[in-house]
């Protein structure tokens, strides 16, 4: 019988209490009738299954009954139902949307088998952060290391694809043969690279992305073996990758084999290779890190000159997201969680308030024999139903909101699609909904059934004990506290955004259109050929109406932060390559400074007469002068840079080359003609900058036409205004601040509603007391201040700890604050002031109602 007692627990408590004893009697009688062991066994088996089946059926009966009851009560109070559902929808919607983006970017596995074993290896140079490997270091590390199943190298660059219709500017990945196999992905058809492809002198091979295969080759399977021309070099197509293969970024349109030449291994500081590797199954990330550190130490001892400050760094491929991007997303998720917390507190409060007014009904039900369990269960059914309706609506909110958040997805991930609300996210929303329902439902439910206080049945009994009042106040205090945290967090982030937007980039972006003409090599390998194109394009562009200046530069500021070269100063020992002694190098045509309105502070501009047969000259930025010749006249001084001794002829203002948020190296500008044929062709000026007095975008067709006329094979890409380039710097932040601001606003409104609800209810519970006070001569102002005091106390109790928590939150966001103090006084005082306003607004109506109470009516209801 103990067995039966145990399985009886499958039934709801109420059913067991009612019929348990009876059912035991029945089973006991059956047991008496069973004589032999087989029939006893059969009896227990059948008893078990019938109990299981009937228990489910009884639970279902109870649920149906509760749902019917809930539907009736909610229909009686539609205002309550709608409010509750909307509040849940906001909370769940905010969290689901934030989660879908965070999960997409930071959590879910990358689309490769055993993706957690994929790592990237970087070199680090003291104070410099991470940088790529040189071929020589890559070769040595690969030979010596034991931690990896496979290791490969790659880099991405732009290339011109000619011959398939219009010339196209593409991003290509140059890979060693190991990369695709180690990622664990098979080509859709054809083959991936093998070691044979890598040998210098063998046929150059290319693998197409699915997208390129579809758009440029019409999805034709006969593409295998076809030759393609990339930057003038012939490649043979050997395979096509599946549609969901994106590596290292979705922009990469095709992959070509990288063939090293013996020369590539000469310079240990020619760092351009990104290293991907797959850990051996038994090797942890930490072990791999330790090994790489040891290897780099070894290399350093071997080549002390070249690798003075070098060390290594191994990170999971998953973590190739900048700290800023990930912090941005975690902050968002945290804020969404705050909104949900407030929503739950608000709902718990609504339910508590309603249960108080339903106390008599509940007492009646309890008196009629509904046990505590039935009442709790009934309450939970109600809150879960509300949560489910709200959750469903919230998912719709999220589906609408997720596309607005895609700006928060960094472009550095090997994933192609945009985040969406998929099954994983739906499960998250479902779990969250259940938690929400239980959290906001359980508290009031337990409260409601905690005491079977039959006093509530007495006519005229005053409901609402002090304990409940305190609980409800605490919930509102929590709401205020959390909304202060959100207000302050979004406040400091807004300040940071303003600060960044106010940052002087060093140039004037208004009225400038830019575009890239890719200069396919080797066609433009010779300096004179390039110069002819520049002169042709620039002179015709200058003739367009409204154009005041036009120039070419290696790469626009903020678009590309690279091109950092070591600087050596005449008379000083050769300076090592470290953060202190490098500068960004750009080749320009003379009008560049006037096109971007970068001020010339001293000396002269570069000119058309700075040619190869003249003295090698350079224009440097003010920070360059400050570093090497502080308080001296730099004009005429020499430094060694990019294979030559250069003479400073001019000084210009500093430009934020690396972007608004990151400190930039000093800048060196070199004349476009002072470079030998075939040297540093990667730095050949290819970005066109045009300043106009009119609308810059309207010039685009005319400029395109000019370029097409001068070189029909020249693709034009990246057409955008300089203002767009600068705005892109803050785009992710802008999105984040908007979303956080929206969350804070929601929290603010919910907290105000919370205060309003609390005070309204307090007033309605105290009508008689207030009536008596007024009858005894209390003035309206006394009553008013009594209610307001109540509100202010609650607000103050929330604001004070809220500000402390907000400081902690702001501290954790410090990396995003761009120098704004986490304890920013203006933000904190505005948040506190807003909370005061919120309190006053929330208290206003209840206070007004209290003042309007007619003492006679109030007392007569007694």
């Amino acid at each position, binding site marked *: 019988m103990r067995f039966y007692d145990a399985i009886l627990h499958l039934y709801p408590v109420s059913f067991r209490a009612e019929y348990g004893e*009876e059912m035991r*009697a029945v089973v006991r*009688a059956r047991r008496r009738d069973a004589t032999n062991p087989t029939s006893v066994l059969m009896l227990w088996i059948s008893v078990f299954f*019938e*109990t299981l*089946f*009937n228990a489910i*059926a*009884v639970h279902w009966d109870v649920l149906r009954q509760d749902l019917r009851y809930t539907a009736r009560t909610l229909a009686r109070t539609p205002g309550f139902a709608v409010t509750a559902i909307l509040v849940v929808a906001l909370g769940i919607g905010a969290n689901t949307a934030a989660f879908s983006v965070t999960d997409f970017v930071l959590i879910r596995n990358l689309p490769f088998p055993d993706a957690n074993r994929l790592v990237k290896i970087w070199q680090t140079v003291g104070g410099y952060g991470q940088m790529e490997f040189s071929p020589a270091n890559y070769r040595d590390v690969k030979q010596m290391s034991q931690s990896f199943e496979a290791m490969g190298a790659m880099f991405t660059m732009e290339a011109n694809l000619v011959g398939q219709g219009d010339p196209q500017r593409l991003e290509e990945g140059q890979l060693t043969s190991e990369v695709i196999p180690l990622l664990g992905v098979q080509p859709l058809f054809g083959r991936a690279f093998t070691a044979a492809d890598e040998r210098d002198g063998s046929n150059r091979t290319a693998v197409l992305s699915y997208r390129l295969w579809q758009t440029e080759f019409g999805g034709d399977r006969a593409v295998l073996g076809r030759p393609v021309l990339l930057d003038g070099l012939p490649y043979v197509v050997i395979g096509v990758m599946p549609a969901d293969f994106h590596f290292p970024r979705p922009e990469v349109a095709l992959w070509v084999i990288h063939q090293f030449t013996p020369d590539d291994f000469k310079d240990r500081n020619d760092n351009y290779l990104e290293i991907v590797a797959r850990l051996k199954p038994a090797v942890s990330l930490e072990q791999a890190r330790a090994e790489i550190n040891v290897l780099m130490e070894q290399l350093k001892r071997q080549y002390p000159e070249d690798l003075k400050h070098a060390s290594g760094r191994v990170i999971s491929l998953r973590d190739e997201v900048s700290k800023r991007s990930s912090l941005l997303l975690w902050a968002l998720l945290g804020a969404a969680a705050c909104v949900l917390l407030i929503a739950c507190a608000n709902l718990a409060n609504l339910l508590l308030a309603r249960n108080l007014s339903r106390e008599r009904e509940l007492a009646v039900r309890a008196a009629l024999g509904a046990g505590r369990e039935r009442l709790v269960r009934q309450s939970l059914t109600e809150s879960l139903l509300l949560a489910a309706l709200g959750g469903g609506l919230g998912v719709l909110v999220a589906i609408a909101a997720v596309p607005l958040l895609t700006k928060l997805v960094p472009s550095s991930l090997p994933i192609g699609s945009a985040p969406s609300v998929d099954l994983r996210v739906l499960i998250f929303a479902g779990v969250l909904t259940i938690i929400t329902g239980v959290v906001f439902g359980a508290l009031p439910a337990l409260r409601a059934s905690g005491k079977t206080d039959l006093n509530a049945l007495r006519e005229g009994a005053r409901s609402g004990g002090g304990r409940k009042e305190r609980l409800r106040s605490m919930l509102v205090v929590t709401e205020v506290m959390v909304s202060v945290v959100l207000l302050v967090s979004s406040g400091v982030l807004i300040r940071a955004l303003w600060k960044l937007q106010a940052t002087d980039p060093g140039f004037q972006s208004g009225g400038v259109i830019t575009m890239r003409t890719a200069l396919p090599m080797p066609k433009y390998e010779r300096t004179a050929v390039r110069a002819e194109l520049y002169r042709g394009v620039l002179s015709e562009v200058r003739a367009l109406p409204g154009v005041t200046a036009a120039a070419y530069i290696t790469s626009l500021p903020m678009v590309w932060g690279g091109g950092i070269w070591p600087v050596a100063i005449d008379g000083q020992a050769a300076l090592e390559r470290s953060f202190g002694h490098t500068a960004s190098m750009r080749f320009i045509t003379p009008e560049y400074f006037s096109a971007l309105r970068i001020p010339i502070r001293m000396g002269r501009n570069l000119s058309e007469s700075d040619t190869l047969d003249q003295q090698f000259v350079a224009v440097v930025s003010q920070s360059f002068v400050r570093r090497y010749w502080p308080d001296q006249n730099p004009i005429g001084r020499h430094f060694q840079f990019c294979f030559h001794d250069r003479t400073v002829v001019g000084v210009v203002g500093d430009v934020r080359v690396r972007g608004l948020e990151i400190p930039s190296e000093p800048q060196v500008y070199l004349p476009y003609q002072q470079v030998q044929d075939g040297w540093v062709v990667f730095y050949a000026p290819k970005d066109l900058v045009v300043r106009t007095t009119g609308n810059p975008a309207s010039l685009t067709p005319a400029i395109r036409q000019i370029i097409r006329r001068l070189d029909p094979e020249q693709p034009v890409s990246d057409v955008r205004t300089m203002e767009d380039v600068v705005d892109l710097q803050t785009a992710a932040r802008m999105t984040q601040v908007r979303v956080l601001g929206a969350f804070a606003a929601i929290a603010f409104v919910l907290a105000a509603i919370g205060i309003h609800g609390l005070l309204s209810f307090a007033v309605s519970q105290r009508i008689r007391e207030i009536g008596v006070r007024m009858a005894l001569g209390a003035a309206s102002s006394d009553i008013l201040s009594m209610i307001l005091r109540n509100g202010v106390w609650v607000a103050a109790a929330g604001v004070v700890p809220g500000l402390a928590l907000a400081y902690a939150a702001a501290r954790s966001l410090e990396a995003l604050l761009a120098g704004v103090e986490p304890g920013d006084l203006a933000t904190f005082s505005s948040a506190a002031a807003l909370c005061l306003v919120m309190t006053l607004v929330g208290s206003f109506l209840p206070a007004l109602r209290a003042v309007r109470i007619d003492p006679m009516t109030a007392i007569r209801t007694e």
Partner: protein
Amino acid sequence: MDKRPDPESFLPLPPATFHILIALAEEDRHGYAVIQDVAARTNGELKLSAGTLYRSIQRMLDQGLIVETSTRPAPEFDDERRRYYRITPLGIAVARAEARRHAQLVRMARVRGLAPEKAS
């Protein structure tokens, strides 16, 4: 709400409910007695389980087909713990309606030769 619900609205009855009503139509019984009566009438073919019985009873109480009775049989037959159930007038009406429904079905089947001729 109508104080006297329409017996037809309960049809068709779940078999267990119908059997319980038949068992209680004769006399007030406790749960185990209902099970025994049903088993006896069906030659042991239908043995209601404890769970099925009391789940049905709970629902029938809610629907007003039966009531718990306070009058008990003679003390020597009475077991203190046991609850006795009595069929209500509504219960009788519903059982009649269900019986009628079954009879009609049998009649229809007979017309098509699917059921034996009426026993004489």
